[in-house]
């Protein structure tokens, strides 16, 4: 496959595909146009490093499959904003541990749309909870000393009334 063209536009030509390889050895094909949503992949494609399967040691196969799905969906022409929003909401309507994996993958691959979507959905999970609830939900280690905890609690007392 020639790597000189940067975007395919005429339907009769076969769509240019990129192959990605996850940390656990699975390979995934993604259309070049969809892959361009990742700045990391875009840079690689521009520098002509995209002909061999691209190894992504930071992303597991299970997550990479979903990232490919996200990018492909968002590269679709003519999708109306409302339908896409609904699709996005469903995409992140999963266990928060998986959303964190999306965040890490989106951060590594520099996919701003996915990063924003996933971070915003985590923020939604935070809203309205008490500190204890947040810690339990996200399995967060407190790390305050007892004096520090009392101090910070007192400073923010108004939020607990």
């Amino acid at each position, binding site marked *: 496959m020639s790597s000189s063209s940067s975007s395919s536009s005429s339907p009769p030509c076969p769509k240019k595909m990129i192959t990605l390889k996850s940390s656990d050895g699975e390979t995934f094909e993604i259309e070049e146009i969809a892959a361009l949503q990742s700045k990391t992949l875009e840079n690689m494609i521009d520098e002509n490093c995209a002909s061999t399967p691209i190894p992504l040691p930071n992303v597991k196969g299970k997550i990479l499959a979903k990232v490919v799905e996200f990018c492909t969906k968002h590269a679709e022409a003519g999708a109306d904003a409302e339908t896409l929003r609904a699709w996005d909401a469903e995409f992140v309507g999963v266990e928060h541990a998986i959303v*964190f994996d999306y*965040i*890490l993958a989106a*951060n590594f691959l520099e996919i701003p749309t996915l*990063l924003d979507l996933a*971070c*915003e959905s*985590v*923020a*939604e999970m*935070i*809203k*309205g*909870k*008490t*500190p204890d609830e*947040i*810690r339990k939900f*996200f*399995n*967060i*280690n*407190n*790390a*305050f000393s007892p004096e*520090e*905890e009392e101090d*910070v*609690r007192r*400073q*923010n*007392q*108004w*939020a*607990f*009334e």
Partner: protein
Amino acid sequence: MDSLPDAIVQYILSYVDNARDIAVCNCVSKRWKDSLPYIRRLYFPRNSFENNAGRDNPDNVVWRMIASIVQLDELVVYCPFSSAGLASWLSLVSSSLRRLELRMDNLAEQQACLETPSKLDCIGAAKDLESLKLWGVLMTCVPKWDIFPKLRNLEIVGARLEGPALSSAIQACPNLTSLLLLGCEGVRSVSIDLPLLEHCKLDFYGLGNCSLSLTSPKIESLEVQGCSWIRVRETNCLRNLSISNNSGRVYMVDFGKLRALEFLSIRGIQWCWDAVSKMLKWASEVKHLYMKVEFTGDYEALQPFPEVDLVDFFNSHPKLQKFDVHGAMFAALCQKNSLKNIDTAFTIPCLEEVAITVRSPLNAEQKMGTLESLVKYGKSLKTMVIKILQMKSSHSSADDFFDEICRFTYMNRKLVRIE
């Protein structure tokens, strides 16, 4: 969550803007507490301090939270506050704050022009604001503002204003692109001279007799409620125009050529005929026309519209695609020449959608003629919706008319429906 890098945690937390949630997040863990100084937006809902045991002054709580943030872009405060409090907050963030939204809540105050700096005056400290939105404002004195050179968007909702104070406030914002004044009373006359203004929405309460003069050559969208006298000379970019008046009579309109106008809406109880006919004349390129003016007449007496020839009307609005005819216009449409004399080349080329309100059975034959002509000459017509309101007379003519409309609807059932 603990395995995410600090930058990610900060990014996630930047989506939390409710001050109460932020205060809670402060208590979750040391790492979260250390991440919160990097949020950019802070929002205090109306009920933030409702259950405050009185220990902590809300102004101070807000101050402490703002003080802990490195660079605050946006501050939204709906809970009550004092001008001293506001001054103290803005002195912390005057260099970074871009967007400010405040519930001022001083409409109930009777006194104007107190000695101490008013809340409005204090806002002047945030010199780099790009957007300012105020709710419940009393602006009877000229606010002590210098200039907001970066202010693009100004919104005032629910206000009591005096003309000079308003003019002065607008003059302090010379680079506005969007101006909204909604639910404002006390204005008699306003003159707006803003070279970059593109969107303007004005809604004036009261007797409906405000005067407006607008000089903004880039204006694209203008909505005005409550004016009887309107002058907008530079209109080369104007695409959407909506003029309505629920309480007074519209008697003078003075617009430049409306070459770019695509949407025109004129509504009200009474418009002088001169004003109506001028608007229709200027809006020759319009694609969507919404008319709901109930009466005309130059004085107190409410008059029906004079006749409007159907052929002339559609010939002078050749691009019309969507036509909403409510109020008195439908009754006025007629064919001054008889149907047989209409030039065979006459068509209504672009009209696709028509919505009509029918109220009285007077001149039933003329009205049926109009409906039939619309269908006959409207080559592109896709839908016609006929709304039938309470017919005034219980005369049999009302029933006859209704029957006629039903028959017409049935004969053109692919296009027409009754609501």
